[in-house]
């Protein structure tokens, strides 16, 4: 290794340099190899493919709104009316999200002569931009009273989200109890949409 002058020979220096180069290159290859298969992939540099891939994740959103949110009746005791004839107009439920949903319904008590809505306050699904799917309330159904044990009932089953087919009418029927006092009553109707 040493020449006659006690110094490293040129060959020895070259050998050390070659070892250093090998270690450096090996370390780099090892580092890049470790990066492969981790979140740090893909490795930039030499392209092994002529195609690239872009990916995007669209988050599911569940959202509904009421295009028509108020239904008003004016009736005497023991009289009945509904929105089937559009007088007054029905609720219009619209799916504003990007997933199909099932819509359930409940409402606070409408009349003061009874603390349950039952047959005096009913609902059903009616076609608008599309038909009501099987599983929807296809005929007048007793409105569940908020805070009842059976809180929600399905009014619209499988409401699509595509704009051309994302709304349905919800008809309301009221039957004023014979012993209901005169005056103005208001019920809050809650529509809840759940992603299918």
């Amino acid at each position: 290794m040493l020449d006659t002058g006690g110094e490293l020979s040129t060959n020895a220096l070259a050998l050390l340099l070659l070892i250093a180069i090998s270690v450096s290159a090996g370390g780099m290859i090892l580092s890049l190899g470790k990066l492969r298969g981790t979140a740090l992939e893909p490795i930039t540099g030499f392209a092994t493919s002529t195609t690239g891939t872009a990916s995007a994740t669209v988050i599911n959103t569940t959202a509904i709104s009421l295009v028509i949110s108020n239904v008003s009746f004016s009736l005497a005791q023991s009289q009945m009316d509904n929105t089937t004839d559009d007088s007054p107009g029905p609720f219009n439920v619209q799916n504003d999200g990007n997933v199909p949903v099932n819509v359930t319904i409940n409402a606070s008590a409408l009349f003061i002569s009874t603390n349950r809505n039952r047959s005096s306050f009913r609902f059903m699904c009616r076609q608008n931009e599309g038909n009501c799917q099987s599983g929807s309330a296809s005929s007048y159904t007793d409105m569940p009273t908020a805070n009842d044990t059976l809180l929600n009932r399905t009014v619209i089953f499988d409401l699509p989200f595509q704009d051309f087919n994302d709304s349905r009418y919800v008809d309301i029927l009221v039957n004023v109890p014979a012993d209901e006092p005169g005056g103005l009553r208001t019920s809050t109707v809650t529509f809840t949409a759940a992603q299918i």
Partner: protein
Amino acid sequence: MEARHRTIILLTILLMALLLSGSYLVLQEINAVAPTQIPAEPQMISTTVGYVTMNVVIPDEGEP
């Protein structure tokens, strides 16, 4: 300068270049990766309310 000296200098420069480029590549890879994005929790439920108002009228039984 002897040929062997030139060779040593050349190899040394090559080593430095390799070291620097290796470090640069690794740092580029680490910096290029965006932090992992955790998708927001999908909103599964939506609620909206409407109102039904009822004016219960009492007929005036005194009228003919």
